[in-house]
């Protein structure tokens, strides 16, 4: 199996008012298919920048980054969008669900950009909600659900396109610890089914559950294992 994501000496420098600010200074990392990696580090360590790059939301200013075997420096914005749609699933700390939109339609959103019709979207979304344990919440709106339920909806949305990598940015950050545990357990069960999971967190206990940890500091990997 080819690696899901390969980063080779990847750097990312921001230009702020004419001053170059390096956020990543040469990071090499491989996410294998079915991997379970935690990226840890304090804020400002570059872990969020790294996650944006791994998810195809941003492009490196140096080095080579392959996502799903494709070199992101050679992709057009439309191809990047397609890559995010097909290969990556995002889970955010603050869920990022569309208000006034049912759980089912939130989950079906990525399928819209694949040109799939409404009926099929709803069927697939309902099935995916069943898989994350929310079969009874299909037509509920985000404000009618608890934080843990909302994050499960977000995970279902990330999974609905059948991605090879799930990128989770502080997925338990806005949840109490019991709910957080159950969300992690869900991610792990998905990982067991073969989806690679990359978890960005500053919580050592959360990170400890991953198969391996990558510690970021000052834009570099300071420890990997």
């Amino acid at each position, binding site marked *: 199996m080819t690696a899901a994501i390969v980063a080779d000496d990847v750097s990312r420098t921001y230009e702020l008012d004419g001053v170059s600010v390096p956020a990543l200074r040469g990071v090499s990392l491989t996410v294998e298919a079915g991997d379970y990696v935690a990226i840890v580090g304090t804020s400002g360590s570059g872990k969020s920048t790294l996650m944006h790059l791994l998810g195809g*939301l941003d492009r490196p200013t140096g080095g080579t980054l392959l996502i799903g075997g494709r070199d992101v420096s050679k992709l057009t914005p*439309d191809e990047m*969008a397609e890559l*995010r749609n097909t290969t990556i699933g*995002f889970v955010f700390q603050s869920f*990022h669900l*569309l208000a006034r939109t049912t759980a089912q339609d939130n989950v079906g*959103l*990525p399928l*819209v950009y694949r040109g799939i019709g409404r009926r099929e979207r709803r069927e697939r979304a309902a099935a995916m909600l069943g898989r994350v344990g929310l079969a009874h919440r299909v037509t509920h709106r985000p404000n009618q659900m608890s934080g843990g339920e909302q994050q499960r909806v977000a995970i279902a949305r990330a999974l609905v396109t059948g991605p090879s990598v799930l990128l989770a940015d502080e997925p338990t950050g806005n949840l109490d610890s019991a709910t957080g545990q159950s969300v992690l357990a869900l991610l792990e069960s998905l990982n067991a089914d073969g989806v690679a999971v990359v978890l960005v967190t500053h919580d050592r206990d959360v990170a400890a559950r991953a198969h391996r940890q990558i510690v970021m500091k000052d834009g570099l990997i300071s420890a990997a294992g």
Partner: protein
Amino acid sequence: MRLAEAWRVALEALRANRLRSMLTMLGVIIGVAAVVALVAIGTGTKQQIENQVEGLGSNLLLVVPGRIEAGSAPTSSPLTLDDIDAINRVVGDRTRVAVTIASGETVRAGSRTRFASMQGVLETTPTVFVRNLDRGTYLTRTDVSTGRRVAVLGAGTARDLFGDRDPIGRQITIGGVRFRVIGVFEPLGQSLGVDRDGEVHVPVTAAQRLLGTERIDGIAIRAPDRERIGELSDAVVATLAERHPDTDFSAVTQEQILGVLGDILGVLTGVLAAIAGISLLVGGVGVSNIMLVSVRERTKEIGLRKAVGARPRDIGVQFLLEAVLLTTTGGILGMALGAGTALLVDGLSPVPAALTWWSMTLAFGVSAAVGIVFGVVPAQRAGRLDPVVALRTE
């Protein structure tokens, strides 16, 4: 599929901000309504005037001294009844030739007076211009040749002087001279706010004596057929030019009058539409403004959509549709409002209004175009948003 979703999202966004959407639309509604209503009034006026000119008949030829063109001063008429004899010979049928000498005079009947347009005419007037009598009889050839003091009243003049009484056989005075009423015209109604029934027809000879002059102001000829009207016009002008070498004469046909009037009223309608169009443009600026606000408000949503695979184009189209939906909904409501206003004006005021499909279609099309034009900038801005920055926005 993507487009259907974009429509749904756009509709939902407008519904979520009902008041704001309504207020934004109001600019477009007023603009479109103004275009539709003003064009309807312009068109209605044009149609009314054209109908009146057409009512004269297409074979009518009007001959006046002087040149008919912008900036030429009115010429005092050298024409007399002797010229009419010459023209009668050219035309070959004296019933086809009418003359007029007009003067505003005070007309009195008993204690009632009114100001009326006195027209000195030949007995041929009702055949040359199509005019029907409501009652009584018109002037006869003998009345004209003897200068008999008899008068035929316009419907308005008759009403003002006699009310409900029958004017036939009664005495009136015109400019202090006594006349006997022998007939009353059918009413013509108003045109551009001018009462067309405020006239008094008397024999041209009697009018000339009253005014102390030999002149006549103009000649009207009903040509036997339409094809020969140009030929006839040339012959008449040549005859008059020979008899009055110092004066220019102009002959105009109904078609030429229609052409000139059409041009003038077309320009007028165009100016009205342009003024209304400006308010439509201002409405468009309002749409643009609100769309920029909408993009800013929904930055996070844009970031999320991009993260799950929306292309810049998908986001752009979504916001463009929202703008177009705003302006076309406004356009439809504006069309209804404008049409309603035009119908009200037509029904309740003397100003005529005629709805035209082209103005409705144009106004609607322009409102859709306004949505596209003024939606493009906000849509592009939304489409180009950096997903990383957008997701981080609170």
